[in-house]
């Protein structure tokens, strides 16, 4: 039903494949990304990319703009300038003329009603007016229904009219970006397996009508999805699948978040401080899991992390932000040796 085919409100006419500076294919590319809150510029013209199959970390002191950047990538907030390309398609850009959308809903109906009014002043049979009024209402409803059940068409129509809405988180998931949250945001009162099933929402195709009629297609899909969810839980090392998420121990909740993100079948995984609050042994286990995910699923990962042991241990590339600007980029060894990074973390004079 509905959400299918909700392509992210793409801005058309973008390059087919993005090739990074050193020739390796980039999955995600942020181009001149800027985000300002009122007068405060939280992220300033940042360029960075995540290469296929790599783990890229985003680090920086508190308030450097990591989370802001992350939220823009996840579709939670819209950029003030610049854009993000994902798999060669522009998925996030500054919204334009979004206020036109409600007018678009009302316009056809309003025109018909205007006609009805004009006809009304000319004293025609009452029936004509009534029919026109109902027709206007029908047009309004038809527009809304189209927007609900065929979001793909609807978004393309908007784009054609020059209306770019800001991408919402679900658009980004649809495009292939899965995420976890820094402060765990599981569905606390749903079981572990249900949490994963919610993650699979976008892959399931059965409509509410299928559910109501309990069609064979829907039954099969539910069966398969439960099996798949169970497999994912096992993959991240969770066995208590019928436990409410809120009753799981902390480490398991973190694992469940990852399983839930994997269930969206991402082509890029965003991890927001996935080892926060864990002890060294648990952290080691998580690091192993990330390496495994990259190796076995060849899934690129964009990581925000404070724990330098994790960052230095598993990253291929590190991007360092300070005061909203990119100050360094490179392999862990390069970044560790960069004077500007040391300065940002330890202050001037530390060198």
């Amino acid at each position: 039903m509905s959400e299918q085919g909700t392509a992210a409100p793409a801005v058309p006419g973008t390059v087919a494949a993005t090739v990074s500076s050193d020739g390796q294919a980039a999955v995600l590319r942020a181009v001149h990304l800027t985000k300002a809150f009122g007068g405060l510029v939280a992220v300033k013209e940042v360029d960075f990319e995540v290469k296929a199959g790599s783990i890229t970390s985003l680090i920086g002191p508190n308030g450097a703009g990591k989370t802001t950047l992350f939220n823009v990538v996840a579709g939670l907030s819209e950029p003030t300038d610049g854009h993000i390309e994902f798999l060669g398609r522009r998925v996030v850009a500054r919204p334009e003329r979004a206020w036109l959308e409600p007018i678009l809903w009302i316009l056809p109906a309003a025109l018909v009603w205007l006609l009805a009014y004009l006809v009304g002043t000319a004293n025609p049979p009452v029936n004509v007016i009534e029919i026109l009024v109902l027709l206007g209402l029908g047009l309004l409803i038809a527009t809304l229904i189209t927007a609900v059940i065929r979001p793909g068409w609807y978004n393309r129509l908007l784009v054609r009219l020059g209306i770019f809405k800001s991408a919402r988180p679900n658009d980004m998931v649809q495009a292939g970006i899965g995420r976890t949250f820094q402060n765990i945001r599981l569905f606390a009162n749903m079981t572990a397996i249900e949490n994963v099933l919610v993650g699979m929402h976008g892959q399931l195709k059965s409509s509410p009508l299928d559910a109501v009629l309990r069609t064979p297609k829907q039954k099969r899909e539910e069966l398969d999805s439960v099996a798949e969810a169970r497999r994912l839980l096992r993959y991240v090392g969770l066995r208590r699948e019928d436990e409410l998420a809120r009753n799981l121990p902390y480490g398991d909740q973190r694992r469940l978040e990852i399983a839930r993100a994997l269930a969206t079948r991402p082509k890029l995984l965003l991890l927001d401080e996935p080892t926060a609050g864990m002890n060294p042994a648990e952290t080691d286990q998580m690091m192993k899991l990330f390496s495994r995910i990259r190796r076995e699923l060849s899934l690129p990962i964009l990581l925000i992390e404070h724990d330098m042991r994790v960052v230095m241990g598993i990253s291929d590339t590190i991007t360092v932000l300070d005061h909203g600007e990119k100050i360094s980029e490179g392999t862990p060894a390069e970044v560790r040796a960069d004077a500007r990074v040391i300065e940002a973390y330890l202050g001037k004079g530390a060198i």
Partner: protein
Amino acid sequence: MTAAARASWARFRGGHFFGRHQSFSVVVGMAIVTAILPFIVLAPPFSGFGTQTDFVDGFSQAGVWVLLAIGLNVVVGLAGLLDLGYAAFFAIGAYTYAYGASPYSGNHVAFWVMLLVGAAVAAMAGLLLGAPTLRLRGDYLAIVTLGFGEIVPVVFTNSDQYTNGTNGITALYQPSLINLSLPIPNLSGILPNLGLFQGSYGFGNPWPYYISVAAIISVVMILAYRLQDSRLGRAWMAIREDELAAASMGINTVTTKLLAFAIGASTSGLAGVYLSSKLSIVSPTQFGFTVSFTVLAMVVLGGMGNIWGVAAGAFVVYEIQSQGLKQLNVFVGQYFPNGLPIFGHVDFLTYQYLLYGLALVGMMLLRPEGLFPSRRRRQELHDVEDADAANVELVEA
């Protein structure tokens, strides 16, 4: 599908929901309730309160509220949206039937067709109201629906040209089933006064209404259960739990909420069609905001999110309101002819909304899972013991 998948499915269903034969248990449950209720009222003390026919008439009226509660439960209990204008869709359903089947409009469409039409029209109204407002924060929705619920009766009152204004539309056609003069033996000699088999829909004979509303409720319940257990139902629950996380899992929150809203509205429209056909009249005063609030009280009392619970809640609240308070008046009048000590003469009927209010506040503070909680909700709302148990289990493992 593999055998393993089949096994895991079975465990999943069995572990979480009512069981695999949901539709079956609804049909059997409703059949038992429908069969037993008319006989309970033949026993004292109920037999003293009124005739069986009166009671059955009351039960068929209660069915309307049960329908409303099941529908509102989808919106409030599953998706976690506060809809305070639910009566508006009820009114829209009722007026749709008035247009479809009354001398006022000159149309006479069959009742059973109008049930679907009324539901569809109400769903569209829900869509029209929800589309602009559901993208906002939840509390705005509450106030917008409150306003909508207030405006719809005003519109019906003021558009006298189309709705006959405050007088309402009268003499709606009553439904007719396939003619019930089937060769069914007259059982009235054996079973006490089972008028069902003797007549058709009409004011004197509530039985056909009683049976039809039971059938309608069963169907609606089955549909509600199936939706709840589907991908859509999980999405609703996810939104109720954490809207932002739900969106980050690929759920289009606006359309999903809109669906909950429209489905809830359609049930309300259905109830409106049924009620107007039973009363054979619609007027704007039937659909004030007290209706919306009463249904909300029923859902909260019954236990948000639990379909059988809200149905039972609606039935109990309706019976207390229509019978209980009246009988309490009679009872107190009998034993305290000079009025209660301290309080003097008390008309309990006037305290109805005070009781609702106290019930809403009390339930939220003391027993938020409702009188008839679902297993899941009880678990949610009393998690301390569960969490301890889980820790013990962990240590043992």
